[in-house]
């Protein structure tokens, strides 16, 4: 399931809902991304812009690819947009499977791919002003690891 929203989410409640009522699920893996308070200089706030319509489309494609590669019983991606304060949650990725291997691997895959494919852009506010975050080569490499499979 995909959700793109301005408001915060409750990770505990989301994970509870993800696995409830499915007796085949024996493992749930999750990732939560937060707004770092510091990246060189103190961060005042971060604004996430996205491309409504394409964002949901890309996230659905990524989720479908994860389900093709691993035996998942359920998955969830929640990604926020708008202006966020340091420490706030940005993203939740959760996967549920019968066993841990698929849940762990699919969760990491989803995070790696969404970072390089989902159309979101971060702008940071610091004492020096506003600046757009630049894409990192490390993120491309992390996503590239999954290509051969």
């Amino acid at each position, binding site marked *: 399931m995909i959700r793109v929203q301005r408001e915060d989410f409750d990770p505990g409640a989301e994970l509870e809902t993800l696995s409830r009522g499915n007796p085949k699920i024996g493992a749930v893996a999750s990732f939560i*991304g937060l707004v770092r308070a510091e990246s060189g200089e103190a961060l005042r706030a971060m604004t*996430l*812009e*996205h*491309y409504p*319509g*394409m964002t949901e*489309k890309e996230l659905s494609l990524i989720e479908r690819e994860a389900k093709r590669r691993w035996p998942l019983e359920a998955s969830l991606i929640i*990604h926020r947009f708008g202006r966020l304060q340091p420490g706030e949650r*940005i*993203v939740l990725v959760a996967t549920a499977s019968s066993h841990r291997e698929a849940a762990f691997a699919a969760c990491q895959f989803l*995070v790696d791919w*969404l*970072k*390089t*494919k*989902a*159309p*979101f*852009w*971060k*702008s940071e506010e610091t004492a020096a002003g506003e600046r*757009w*975050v*630049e*894409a990192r080569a490390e*993120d491309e490499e992390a996503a590239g690891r999954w290509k051969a499979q």
Partner: protein
Amino acid sequence: MRVRYFAWLRARIGRAEEEIPLPPEVGDVAALLDWLVGRGGSYEAALANRGAIRVAVNKEYVGFSHPLAEGDEVALFPPVTGG
């Protein structure tokens, strides 16, 4: 054709989107970029580094050689930084 701009491309060009009747000489994405650069000013400056531009047509990633048709929604944006 609707052309949309995101992140620093939107900021540098100074608008989020615009309607552009497909010029006859614009057959693909690369030709659209040439045409926009030909407007000069903020377009020329924002679109100078093509390596930093990603493109979607009708909300799907495409390359610069992707053909364009009247009615397409073309989005130009920098590499994504979500997650």
